[in-house]
């Protein structure tokens, strides 16, 4: 089964698409058959980053049943071993993808024959975004060192956390849980899902055991992008430490990517940054990141949808 790498991060512009395309390029360059899927529906631009300016089919053709099989929406790119499912023509927003279509998509993704599948998820915490992030235990969070971006990535992490807990409850059970939490903790509890777990632990011990086992199997990663000279190199590991201590989520710090003006230049020229500026700090960081991640494939789990 393919290694699935969902890439998310609460804030727009943090570099999700840039990282998705760069990691895709590096994996493909190493001879691994790699597929990029642009799920940032409504704001898709991954095709531009991998030099497929006029995609002639895309993900929405699968959703609208114009194309029956997901694998038939795959496009070749100018780079050997690198493929793309574009989101370009989607008038559809990811938030409006129906539940059935989402499940169908997830099942189809799981069956695709690639070594690596990278999902570019776009900003925000729409439920569909959360579910695609949870398509594997290897999700990658991207943030920049700015407080706004960090704030949003925390929000995304908490949303994913809550979404995963929700998964273990029926609608009625969850309502009961919500009520209980409200009773014990007051009204703004849902901003802090970690507090809910304390209640689950007490009131639903058998579910708590399952959830704990589940959470311990995750291998989420964090990438700090656009680091400038004056930023602290410790920031990423400190974020992971806070998340582990206070949210109980294991997120490995995967590395810093330097801020580099050339990224902008490469995107404007629509050429690959890695090919055009291979000897920059940021290109080194990307290669290092890729090397590290290739060594740490967690167990693949397509979570519970199959």
């Amino acid at each position, binding site marked *: 089964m393919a290694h699935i790498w969902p890439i998310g991060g609460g804030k727009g512009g943090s570099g999700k698409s840039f990282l998705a395309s760069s990691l895709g390029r590096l994996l493909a360059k190493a001879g691994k058959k790699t597929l990029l899927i642009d799920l940032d529906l409504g704001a898709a631009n991954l095709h531009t980053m991998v030099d497929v300016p006029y995609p002639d089919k895309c993900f929405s053709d699968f959703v609208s049943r114009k194309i029956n099989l997901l694998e038939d929406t795959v496009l070749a790119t100018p780079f050997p071993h690198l493929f793309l499912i574009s989101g370009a023509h989607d008038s559809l927003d990811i938030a409006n993808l129906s539940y059935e279509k989402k499940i169908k998509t997830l099942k189809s993704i799981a069956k695709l024959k690639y070594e690596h599948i990278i999902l570019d998820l776009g900003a925000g915490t729409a439920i569909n975004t959360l579910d695609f992030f949870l398509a594997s235990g290897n999700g990658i969070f991207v943030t920049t*060192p700015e*407080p706004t971006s*960090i*704030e949003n990535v*925390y929000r995304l992490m908490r949303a994913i956390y809550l979404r995963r807990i929700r998964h273990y409850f029926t609608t009625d059970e969850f309502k009961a849980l919500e009520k209980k939490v409200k009773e014990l903790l007051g009204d703004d509890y849902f901003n802090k899902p970690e507090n809910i*777990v*304390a209640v689950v632990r007490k009131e639903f011990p058998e579910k708590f055991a399952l*959830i*704990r086992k589940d*959470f*311990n199997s995750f291998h989420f990663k964090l990438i700090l992008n656009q680091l400038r000279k*004056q*930023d*602290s190199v*410790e*920031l990423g590991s*400190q*974020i992971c*430490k*806070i998340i*582990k*201590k*206070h949210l*109980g*989520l294991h997120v490995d710090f995967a590395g810093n990517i330097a801020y580099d003006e050339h990224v902008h230049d490469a995107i404007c020229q629509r050429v690959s940054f890695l090919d055009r500026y291979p000897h920059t700090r940021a290109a080194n960081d990307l290669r290092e990141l890729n090397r590290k991640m290739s060594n740490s494939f967690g167990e693949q789990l397509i979570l519970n949808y199959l």
Partner: protein
Amino acid sequence: MEKDFTRLNYYEMLDIKPNATALEIRVAYNSALQMYQPDSLVSYSFFSQKERKEILARLEKAYFTLINEKEREIYNGELVRAGVLKSTEISPAAKGLVSIFEFNRQKDTPGMPKIHSSELKEKFSQNQRIREIISRQEIKGADLKEIRNELGVTIETIHQQTKIRLDYLHWVEDDKTEKLPAAVFLKGFIKSYLKCLCIEPADEISARYMNSLEHKN
């Protein structure tokens, strides 16, 4: 998913081993402060003000307990009795000299609040309350604390900048005179404390503080 922060023991809270040396405890406390202080980029949006306050209070308690040999022994005893620690895990060599000044290898760490002297000076010159306090003949620790609060500087920041131990700073501010170090040291502390807040003339005000202290005893 692990234990709630509130259930961590002091060693877990500071991410150190039960046989950590005094130096390790300080370094750990310093790096924890960097993460949990109000202007820390890492935790700024993660906690509410109330939560942060509670965490900082817990960390401080942990630090003071572990850094004090007697209290640490008592605390270790509790952990052993509760079955959390084995007595063999606690090294008998957890002693060592505890210096008055903090040993802190890290230089100015990014993310640490910096004191901007021009800003402080301006606040200082405009704040009626502060002017009133420093014009008094008698100056106590509580007055220093009030000035610090008026200027909006945390005690941790003073601790970081002056490298004076936090417990000493607290004892000064709370007028725990029986715990304070010998006068020669104390006077130096008060001066650093005032300079750190850009309160002038530091020499003269610290002399008044020392006088007030003598009168009291």
